[in-house]
């Protein structure tokens, strides 16, 4: 009986249920969208590394990026069970188009790789053949199409050698990473890049029968600097290494998924809370007609299931679209996320469905359970709008207040008392921040009541309320059910709070790094490779010819492993000329430490120093190319946000340790100021004409580039959060429109006794605005508080609290604007309420 009734009721209320289902869909779309995005990003990286290892069974590579001596290849080939072992080289390359302009890098710097036998490679030859000999190359299909190259064309490439022409003999598939690809023969690439017989890695395929023990036999004959890993574990090691370097991104995405879950759950729960009054009435009627508790609860569950399934299915469909949008945003900001289609893992879909249906079921079952607890007649009376007794309300408020204070206090303590490493402190900030936010959610109804009575007791409020009923009616309606109002605004509050906290964090980082960059980089002009590529050493000669150059200093960079740490950046500088273009911000040491820097001594950046427990005078070990170990003494510790991270060596020693590193990372120039900066920049650009792929920048461009390097990922997090705020405002609109539907009788009565359609619309608008204002204000306060705590905890990083005025203003204006927008639909519906239907008593 009840089932038939429920189904019929569902059909009768299809409009309201459609809105509820849409809100559910929104929550589910957010959750599953973030999950899909996270999965996609991870899988992209995994593919990227899987590709770099080809289809080999075993990958042999130098520890920490060191080269593998060529002799190892021959030795490995003789190991029993090895079918194929091929050395592989991968270097950056600059491709110059027929017009003479550099072909812009796609996603990451274009890469030159050595040809591999088909069974070890994921790159397929589409037409032509693999390159043989010194002047042959193969090129990826996309780049070839872009530039109109076919087999037989000639391309100009900047390798380790000056620009020269090569003949295209093959077209290959593009790298999974989306980078532009140039394929050389192995010997050709080794000689072009001055590698001798060394290779970056060796790919080994075993005979089918010889798989077990193969890797052990290979390992036995490898030098200490070289390691062999099964391809699978090598991929996962690389993924985890990159995951670590992208940990803030991954962590951010996970946090975002959690936030989305929270916001989605709140929105869904809110939907049902708002419709609960109406449904409560029906349930009371059913109870009075003799329905059992079980029947009542199952009626509620059927409705919840219906809304949950419909909404969740729609949400799961919309989720990937959301993910796609986020992906586009990332691409738009220029951060090199790997290419590849969306990854739709069953787990992302399952979690989205579970969340949507689960929360809808819980939210629908609660009012039903409540209805069964009262006697039938009492249920009818409660449904007719009677409120619980005042004493009970007070007790509830008191408990709520105590709980909220406990949560917020605990959260603040967890944040402020956090200690340990940076990551640990950030983690505890996150936990503390979450506690504070949950506390604010618990306190929400109290805040609404408080704001309501504050507005009611403001001087003149009573007079104004008498003169102009509409806004005060809106306020009174919101305060009548503070829990519902708080829930409607909760998602907005969380969004605003997080946006602000992140905004302050980003602003602090940016201020810290830009201060550091402005203080450290003194050079007026810089020469760099486009897309982060290296610069041929010859440019220095060309740059010297530019008039007005007072000083010139070069920078070389590579990676090495430092003591226990994995790969750290290593820079080589000339101790005498470097001080003309760069000012060290010393933590330990002084400019004398730089002037007297000799081979065997290094300077260490403070982050690295702290991570490795290094101070001035420490002895360190650098493991460099070929697995050689170099001992050094730390002559000073400095702070640098962008340019010199890791370890800095005197150039002469750098050249000895890293002989393969012929090319420069950058050239910095100081002008004497005789001609203007822009004139000098122009003449430098002319001087660099023979070097395609090399760009000249002035000081502000240098600073901007270094800054964006430091902040890219955090800014993306920020973009995600702005998206959250926008979506939570949609939630407010949905809640409002449901509330209008639920109150059609009340609105009908108001219209009957003389409220004009314009007034009705104004009342809804006031409700929307007030809800948004309360939520945004709570969010602003919470967010700034959280941000202050984060900055306070991380102040050793050099983080400073910068009041994010732009964000604050944007949040305030955005909240107001969307509150008005959110009220448009519901307001229109309020004016169209059928007065006669609303006041009819049959």
């Amino acid at each position: 009986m009840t089932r038939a009734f429920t189904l019929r009721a569902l059909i009768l209320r299809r409009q309201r249920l459609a809105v509820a289902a849409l809100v559910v869909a929104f929550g589910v779309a957010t959750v599953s969208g973030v999950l899909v995005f996270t999965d996609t990003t991870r899988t992209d990286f995994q593919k990227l590394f899987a590709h770099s290892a080809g289809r080999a069974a075993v990958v042999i590579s130098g520890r920490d990026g060191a080269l593998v001596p060529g002799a190892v290849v021959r030795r490995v080939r003789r190991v029993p069970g090895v079918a194929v072992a091929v050395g592989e080289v991968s270097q950056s390359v600059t491709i110059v188009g027929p017009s003479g302009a550099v072909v812009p890098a796609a996603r990451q710097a274009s890469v030159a790789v050595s040809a591999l036998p088909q069974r070890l490679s994921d790159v397929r030859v589409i037409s032509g053949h693999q390159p043989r000999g010194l002047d042959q190359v193969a090129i990826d299909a996309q780049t070839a199409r872009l530039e109109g190259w076919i087999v037989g064309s000639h391309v100009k490439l900047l390798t380790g050698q000056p620009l020269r022409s090569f003949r295209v003999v093959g077209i290959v598939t593009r790298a999974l990473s989306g980078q532009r690809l140039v394929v050389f023969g192995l010997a050709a690439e080794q000689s072009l890049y001055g590698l001798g017989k060394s290779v970056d890695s060796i790919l080994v395929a075993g005979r089918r029968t010889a798989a077990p023990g193969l890797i052990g036999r290979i390992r036995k004959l490898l030098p200490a600097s070289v390691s062999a890993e099964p391809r699978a574990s090598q991929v996962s090691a690389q993924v985890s290494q990159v995951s670590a370097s992208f940990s803030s991104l991954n962590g951010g995405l996970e946090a975002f998924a959690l936030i989305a879950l929270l916001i989605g759950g709140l929105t869904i729960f809110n939907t049902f809370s708002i419709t609960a009054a109406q449904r409560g009435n029906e349930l009371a009627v059913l109870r009075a007609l003799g329905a059992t508790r079980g029947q009542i609860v199952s009626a509620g569950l059927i409705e919840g299931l219906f809304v949950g399934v419909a909404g969740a299915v729609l949400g799961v469909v919309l989720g990937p679209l959301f993910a796609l949008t986020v992906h586009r945003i990332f691409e738009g900001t220029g951060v090199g996320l790997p290419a590849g289609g969306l990854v739709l893992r069953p787990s992302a879909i399952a979690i989205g469905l579970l969340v949507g249906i689960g929360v809808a079921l819980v939210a629908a079952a609660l009012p039903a359970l409540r209805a069964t607890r009262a006697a039938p007649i009492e249920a009818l009376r409660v449904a007719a709008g009677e409120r619980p007794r005042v004493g009970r309300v007070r007790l509830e408020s008191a408990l709520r207040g105590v709980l909220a204070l406990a949560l917020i206090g605990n959260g603040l303590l967890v944040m402020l008392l956090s200690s340990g490493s940076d990551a640990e402190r950030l983690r505890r900030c996150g936990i503390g921040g979450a506690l504070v936010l949950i506390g604010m959610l618990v306190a929400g109804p109290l805040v609404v009541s408080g704001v309501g009575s504050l507005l009611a007791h403001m001087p003149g409020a009573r007079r104004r309320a008498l003169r102009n009923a509409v806004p005060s009616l809106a306020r009174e309606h919101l305060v009548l059910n503070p829990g519902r109002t708080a829930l409607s605004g909760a998602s907005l509050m969380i969004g605003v709070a997080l946006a602000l906290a992140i905004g302050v964090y980003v602003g602090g980082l940016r201020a810290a790094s830009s201060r550091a960059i402005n203080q450290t980089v003194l050079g007026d002009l810089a020469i760099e490779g486009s897309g982060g590529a290296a610069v041929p050493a010859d440019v220095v000669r060309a740059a010297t010819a530019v008039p007005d150059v007072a000083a010139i200093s070069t920078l070389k960079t590579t990676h090495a492993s430092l003591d226990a740490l994995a790969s750290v950046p290593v820079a080589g500088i000339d101790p005498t000329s470097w001080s003309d273009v760069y000012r060290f911000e010393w933590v330990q040491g002084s400019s004398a430490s730089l002037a007297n820097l000799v081979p065997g001594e290094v300077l260490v950046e403070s982050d690295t120093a702290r991570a490795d427990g290094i101070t001035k005078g420490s002895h360190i070990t650098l493991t460099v190319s070929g697995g050689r170990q170099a001992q050094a003494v730390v002559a000073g510790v400095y702070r640098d946000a962008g340019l010199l991270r890791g370890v800095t060596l005197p150039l002469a020693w750098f050249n000895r340790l890293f002989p393969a590193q012929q090319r420069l990372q950058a050239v910095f120039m100081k002008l004497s100021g005789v001609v203007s900066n822009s004139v000098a920049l122009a003449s430098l650009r002319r001087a660099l004409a023979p070097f395609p792929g090399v760009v000249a920048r002035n000081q502000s461009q240098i600073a901007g580039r270094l800054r964006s390097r430091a902040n890219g990922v955090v800014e993306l997090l920020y973009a995600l959060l702005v998206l959250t705020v926008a979506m939570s405002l949609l939630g407010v609109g949905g809640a409002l429109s449901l509330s209008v539907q639920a109150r059609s009788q009340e609105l009908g009565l108001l219209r009957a006794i003389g409220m004009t359609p314009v007034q009705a619309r104004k009342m809804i608008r006031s409700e929307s605005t007030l809800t948004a204002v309360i939520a945004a204000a709570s969010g602003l306060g919470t967010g700034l508080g959280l941000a202050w705590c984060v900055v306070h905890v991380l102040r050793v990083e050099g983080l400073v609290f910068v009041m994010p005025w732009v964000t604050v203003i944007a949040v305030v204006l955005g909240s107001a604007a969307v509150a008005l927008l959110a009220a448009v639909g519901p307001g229109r519906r309020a004016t169209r309420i059928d007065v006669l239907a609303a006041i009819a008593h049959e």
Partner: protein
Amino acid sequence: MSFDAEAADPRVVIGEGLTKRYGDGVAAVDALRGVSVSFDSGTLTAIMGPSGSGKSTLMHLLAGLDTPSSGEVWLGGTRLGELDEGGRTRLRRNRVGFVFQQFNLLPMLTVAENIMLPVRIAGREIHDEWLDWLLVAIGLEARREARPAELSGGEQQRVSLARALISRPAIVFADEPTGNLDSRGTEVILTMLRRAVDDLGQTIAIITHDPLAAARADRILYLQDGLIVQETGRMSPGAILDTVKTLR
């Protein structure tokens, strides 16, 4: 028909040849089929009739809540047909009071605030003495700050009556005002409606099924199938019941 000598004419509300048809073609339903009626100032009129006879439709048309398919309504000298929706709304809030059977009060407002609501919506001055007088008259002056949920059904209906009177309307329409009340609550409300007519000179029309309620009226209109089939003066409940029976 002209209606400019308002002071001389005792009729505050006039309906002329009112019809109301819902729907089109074969599905069309005629709720009213030509009703002419007027209400004199300071009288209590009861409109009786079985369900579906057109009582509520007639009230909706006379109160400007709905527009007739044909015919005209004059309310306090204004021809409703000349007004748009906004004009009718303003007329309603200034010249018409309503008492409904249920869902009458706003739960978030106190007794006093509910009574003042029409005046507040209209943005007019509130005369505190008038409010106080009404609160005393409905016997709820001690509960002026109470919320509707704290009142009995009868008390809530008394608040509705005070709200209907606050703007000193030309006419109060009470649609089954006693439909949800017990006998004591019914008695109290009927007495108050009568007093509003006798003491304040208020014009009131009540729509009711209840012969006891109709017996308080100065005049009783009987509706059946969209037409006024009989009109009588004051009658006893028993006589009303008999009249209703003869009509069936």
